[in-house]
Structure formats: C-alpha cells, structure tokens
C-alpha cells in the first residue's frame, strides 16, 4: 500500500471538510441556503429605508449609496463570519480529531474558505440584481476590486487563525470578540460614512485595519470615490501577515493541547 505525501493528505482533508461544511450550511441549518442570501439583502433594505427616511442618501462623495452599502455590508459580514465561524470551527470538529489526518488548523481554514466563497457569491448576486434595476453596479477597476475583496477575506483568515487558538484555550476570548463585532461594524464604516467625522476622531479610527480593507474595496469600485487620507494596503497587509504568522505559530505550538481539550 502506497503512503501518501503530506500535501496529498492535506488536500483530501480540505476537500472532505469543505464538502462537510457546505452540506451542513445548506441542508442541516434550516433553510440555510435561503438565509445566506436573505440576511444581507434584508439588512440592506432596512438600512436604505432608514437612510431614506432621514434623507441622507445622496451625501457620499463619488459613490452611489446602494452599491457603497452593499460592498461595506457584505465585506464586513465576510470578515465577521469568517472570524467568528473560524473561532468555533475547532469545537465543532472535536470528533474528527480521532483521525490523525485532520488538524485543528484545517477545520479553521476550510470554514473561513467556505465563508469567503459564500459571501463572494452573495456579492455577485446582489451586484447583478442591482444592475438589473439599472443602478451602476460594476467595479471601475475589476482586478483591483477583486484584489481588495480578497484582502478583506485574508484579514478575516489571519485574525481567525489567531483567535481560534486563543478562544479554544481561554473561552472568554470568544465572548469578547463576539461583543466587539457590533461596535466594529460601525467604526469600520460599513454602514455609515466616517468621512464627515472630525479629524481628531479619524486619527484614531485610522488604526482599524477592517476600515482600511473596506475603504480599499470601495476605492477600486468607484473611480471618483473620496475616502480618508492614509488608507493603505501596506498597513492592511502588515496586519494580515502579522496576524497570520502569530496564528500559525499558535497553531503549531498548541495543536495537541487543542485537540485533547
């Protein structure tokens, strides 16, 4: 009997976990497939409704309000659910660690991958829908937009790898991260523009890497979009690679401890 190489084993495990994850998301959760699309759409309808009611629809310089909101919301959800679901991945795969081929990091990675695929499909679905309503919903810089979209996902992956280990070792961490998500939704500029805040506040908000990733996506989507000064890929990727390196280190160090918890 031939012995498989490490990479072959990893590929099989990723494939198996991916199929399991998709299956659970689509069929085991009640109407999982429906809510995947319905949740962001409902959210957007509510947000647009509120913004129309208070008549602030037109004040985003250089961008249409609805696609602007779609990118912010779906992008933030991709980040948030990647991080949160990745954090819960290890716990929900406990039984699978009896097979030595399955490592905790595989479960985290595959979950975040599935989240990225799902949210990207939701985005495409929504943008096509908007185009059919004859709203301008095609990125001005397609390649640049996909790269920045990928960067949002990478940020979720890096932080997901990092927090998945911490949350398994110290369960309070998961609660804390969960609580942080609502304020982060607001201070990341996903639903309300932060361009009009005073400069002194902006100077603090600029440290938030999630805001960088979302604004970068909007910058490549709308050619004339006016964002913050100081938004940069360099800062974003420092966070991505930093959290990823830390996350990988933690996974190597605590692999066996996590498995047997």
């Amino acid at each position, binding site marked *: *009997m031939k012995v*498989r190489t490490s990479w072959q*084993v990893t590929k099989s495990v990723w494939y198996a976990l991916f199929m399991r994850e998709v*299956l659970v998301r689509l069929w085991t959760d009640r109407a999982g497939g429906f809510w995947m699309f319905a949740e962001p759409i409902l959210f957007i309808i509510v947000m647009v409704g509120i913004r129309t009611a208070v008549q602030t629809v037109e004040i985003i310089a250089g961008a249409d309000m609805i696609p602007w909101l779609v990118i912010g919301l779906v992008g933030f959800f991709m980040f948030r659910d990647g991080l949160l679901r990745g954090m819960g991945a290890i716990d929900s795969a406990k*039984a699978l660690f*009896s097979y*030595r081929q399955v490592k905790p990091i595989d479960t985290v990675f595959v979950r975040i991958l599935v989240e990225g695929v799902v949210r990207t499909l939701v985005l495409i679905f929504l943008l096509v829908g908007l185009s059919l309503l004859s709203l301008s919903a095609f990125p001005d810089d397609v390649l640049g937009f996909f790269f920045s979209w990928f960067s949002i996902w990478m940020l979720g992956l890096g932080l997901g790898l990092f927090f998945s280990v911490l949350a398994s070792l110290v369960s309070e961490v998961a609660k804390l991260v969960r609580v942080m998500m609502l304020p982060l939704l607001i201070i990341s500029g996903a639903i309300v523009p932060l361009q009009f805040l005073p400069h002194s506040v902006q100077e603090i908000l600029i440290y938030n890497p999630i805001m960088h990733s979302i604004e970068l996506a909007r910058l490549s989507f709308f050619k004339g979009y006016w964002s913050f000064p100081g938004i940069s890929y360099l800062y974003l990727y420092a966070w991505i690679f930093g959290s990823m390196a830390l996350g990988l280190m933690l996974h190597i160090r605590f692999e066996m401890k996590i498995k047997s918890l």
Partner: protein
Amino acid sequence: MIRIENLSKKYYNHHGSEWVLKDINLTIPTNVSVGLVGKNGAGKSTLLRLIAGIDTADKGQIFRDCRVSWPIGLKNVFQASMTGRQNVQFVARIHGDNEKIKEIINYVEEFAEIGKAFDDPVKTYSSGMKSRLAFGLSLAFDFDVYLSDEATAVGDASFKKKASAVFKERVNQASLIMVSHSEGILRDLCQAGIWLNEGEAIWFDDINDALKAYSEYHK
C-alpha cells in the same frame, strides 16, 4: 514497520507530573500482530494513541511507513449532527479513496445492518448502532496495521459472529496492535506481545510469554 525511538510521555495533573512511558525503544515488524498487556494506567491506550498519531510524545519519535488505522473502539469518531452516510463519506474522503467512495459507503451500509437509520443523524443512534457503524467503517479500508483499543465485536449474537469472522480474516492479511484485558482474544489474534510496566516496555516474541510475565509479576 513501525519504529519507536526514545519515546517518553508524561501527563500533568494537579499533583505534579508523572512519566507514563519512559524512554521506549521498539520496532514492530509488519505482519506481526502484537498485544499490549499491562495493568490499568500502565500506558497501553496512551501508547496506542501515540502510534495512531492523535497524541504527541514529550520526547522521542515514531516512524510509520505503512497505512495505520485510527484506534478502533474509540468513542466519538462520528460527528453527531451528520448522518451515518455523511460520516462514512467524510472518512473515506480524508483517506483519499475518492474513486472508491461509493464502494466504501455500500460496504459499510451493508455491514452495519442499521437499515434506514444510515441516513439519520448519528445523534439519534443507540450505542449499539454507533458501534456497528464504527466497526463497519474501520473494516472498509485496507490498512496495513489496525489499532484496536478494547474493540470487541458488539451487538447481538449474529452480528458478533459475523464481525469477528471478518475481523479475523482481515488480520490474516494485515497486522494488528491491540489493547485488551481478555487473554483469550489476545492469544487468539496476536503472535507477539508488549508488556508495559512502570513506564517501560518489554517485547516478547510470543504473546503467551508476555501474558505469563505479566500475571507472575502481579501475583
């Protein structure tokens, strides 16, 4: 062949730490079935888990150059929210047998004889149904070495008979490393033996000698 070099393992507990296995060196040849004997807490299951690769040693290494199963008889090898079929499919996929997945699923479905429950979530299973599924699953793959932790045929009389017959036949082609407290089963299935005592492992070419040494020591 499985080679164990300078293997040590300790467990931490609230009153310090104790070495369960101390500096163990062993070579387990292919085609020799081995029984692990020793009293409770001597480290038999620990050694089996280390060989299975689901636990790490504090020192030393284990080299495997053959396909080794997961420890059969271990509880919780299924994800409770997935059906029996989905669980089997998952395990087949991680073992990379993509072209044989259908075959494996059919084999397990037929072997386990749990009928329609095969498509129900595992959390609805009785413990007997779970063991049937687990046993069928482990026999569906062609491993070179089977690890067995007190895995004895379970279920009603007819299933027991069928299971032990298939298991014996399988052991003729592959080899087996097993933990059991039943001397009869060890004598029946194993040729060689390893006696674990106070952190040391002593190899015996004949399982009867291992059992004799063990029982004389504890007389």
